[in-house]
């Protein structure tokens, strides 16, 4: 076992541990924080794989955006420090089943590619120029159409947000901000 593998297992343990804590915590704010750690762990995994761009986007979108939004909605709706009620039996069973089937599905997908052997012979091309060109090219494997569609979707979401928030409160501004940031960064990259 080399040092790389040790780092991988450490990061995975962090992700899984934080994930389990996120769903079992009785304090909603703590759940959000554990979720944050889990997502940071995933970003760390990307860094480990040396796909820095994806890692950075993971942090910007999920950690800087989604979790902040979640925290904001907790601030605005929940009473401080209240514990959530214990989930009912049936709920627990259903969530266990759901996660099991999710695991099985993922396993099924991965097992098509010669088991779990790590193949490092095929390096990623992660240069920014490459990503940018690929994103906006119209030729084979170009992503211009989905990219523009996503932009439209985000724009529609943003307009919707503004319409709903005729009396703008800070969290809606925040959500609009985050969406705008993402779309703009993706648009203007390169």
């Amino acid at each position, binding site marked *: 076992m080399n040092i790389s593998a040790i780092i991988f297992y450490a990061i995975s343990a962090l992700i899984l541990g934080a994930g389990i804590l996120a769903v079992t915590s009785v304090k909603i704010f703590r759940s959000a924080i554990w979720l944050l750690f889990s997502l940071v762990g995933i970003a760390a995994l990307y860094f480990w794989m040396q796909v820095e761009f994806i890692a950075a986007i993971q942090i910007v979108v999920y950690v800087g955006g989604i979790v902040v939004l979640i925290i904001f909605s907790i601030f605005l709706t929940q*009473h*401080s*420090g209240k514990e959530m009620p214990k989930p009912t039996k049936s709920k627990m069973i259903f969530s266990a089943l759901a996660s099991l089937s999710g695991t099985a599905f993922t396993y099924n997908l991965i097992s098509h590619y010669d088991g779990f052997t790590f193949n490092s012979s095929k390096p990623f091309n992660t240069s920014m120029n490459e990503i940018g060109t690929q994103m906006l090219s119209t030729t084979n494997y170009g992503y211009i159409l989905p990219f523009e569609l996503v932009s439209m979707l985000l724009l529609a979401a943003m307009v919707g947000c503004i319409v709903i928030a005729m009396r703008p*409160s800070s969290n809606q501004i925040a959500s609009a901000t985050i969406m705008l940031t993402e779309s703009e960064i993706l648009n203007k990259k390169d």
Partner: protein
Amino acid sequence: MYNQTEIIKDTTELGPEGELVVNMGPQHPATHGVLHLVVTLNGETIKKIEPHLGYIHRSIEKMCESLTYRQFIYVTSRMDYLSSHINNTACALLVEKGMQIEVPERAQYVRTILNELTRIASHELWIGAMAMDLGAFTPFFYAFREREMITEIMEDTCGARLTMNYIVPGGLMYDIHPTFQNKVKAFIKQFKEKVVEYEDLVTNNVIFQSRTKGVGILSAEDAISFGCTGPVARASGVNCDIRKIAPYDVYAKVEFDEVIETAGDSFARYMVRIKEMNQSIRIIEQLIDTIPEGDFVGKTKNVLKLPKGEFYQRVETARGEFGVYIVSEGGTTPHRIKFRSPGFSNLSALSHMAEGSKIGDLMATMGTLDLVIPDIDR
């Protein structure tokens, strides 16, 4: 309604309609003393403000009932400590009026000059504290540089820098210091130069203007109804300068303008005070070279006894109209004494002015009310 002790405990939970109840004070950087405001917030917007007073209430009125007419003046320095000299003047004027004591002209001139210096010192401190409330620290030091000159003049004159106690019924306690006139002239010169700095640093600052214009508006009717006086009422366009309405000392002899603004917002209150300082300088300039020679204290008996009856004296302090009401039964001590403090009435308008505005606006509004807590609590 909330019980006072309950409020202090209840800081963690939201109110019945999801509003936040925040205790601003008794220890809070913006209340400048031990004022306790229970602020009900809806997000950042203020729904209600309820002042809770009495943290430094010393019952000065009760104390004065057992003090003689010479002694009780000194207690009044501890009320509005920034206008202590003016408070003392009010008490002395009342005793002089009640006993028909002649005050020598020299004493009257010096009293008037010192009153105006006190007013400038108070406004200087206010500018600093007000700017600090709005988050600007530097004007505080600029204002204190000039205020220091005044306190030094006061120190030379009467040995104290804050609670002057320089006035006795009938005149002054001592004659003025030989350097008094020169120092006051030096101060006037310096002040005229440096007031430009305040204008640059504070008045013309875009952020300062946007923080104060249209904030904490008080209409003229409300100002009268709430009993507001001083710069607060004058910024709303109410003529209420006691120096003009019922002149005392030598105010009738000097020329000065009553500063009136009509906007009624925080910026107007700020401008009134800035302009008032210039008017005070004007008054001092007229008097400082013509202080008459002569006695500094009139002839009085050793034991003062006010005749049976009721007496009232109004003066204009830096914060507004200060009134002393004495009911005498003819003895050496008053039967009942009441101090009408300007801050108490001005504070009562705070809730009305700040409702519906943001927390940041509350600071601008409260800052321009120029509250001195011992003056409110007495």
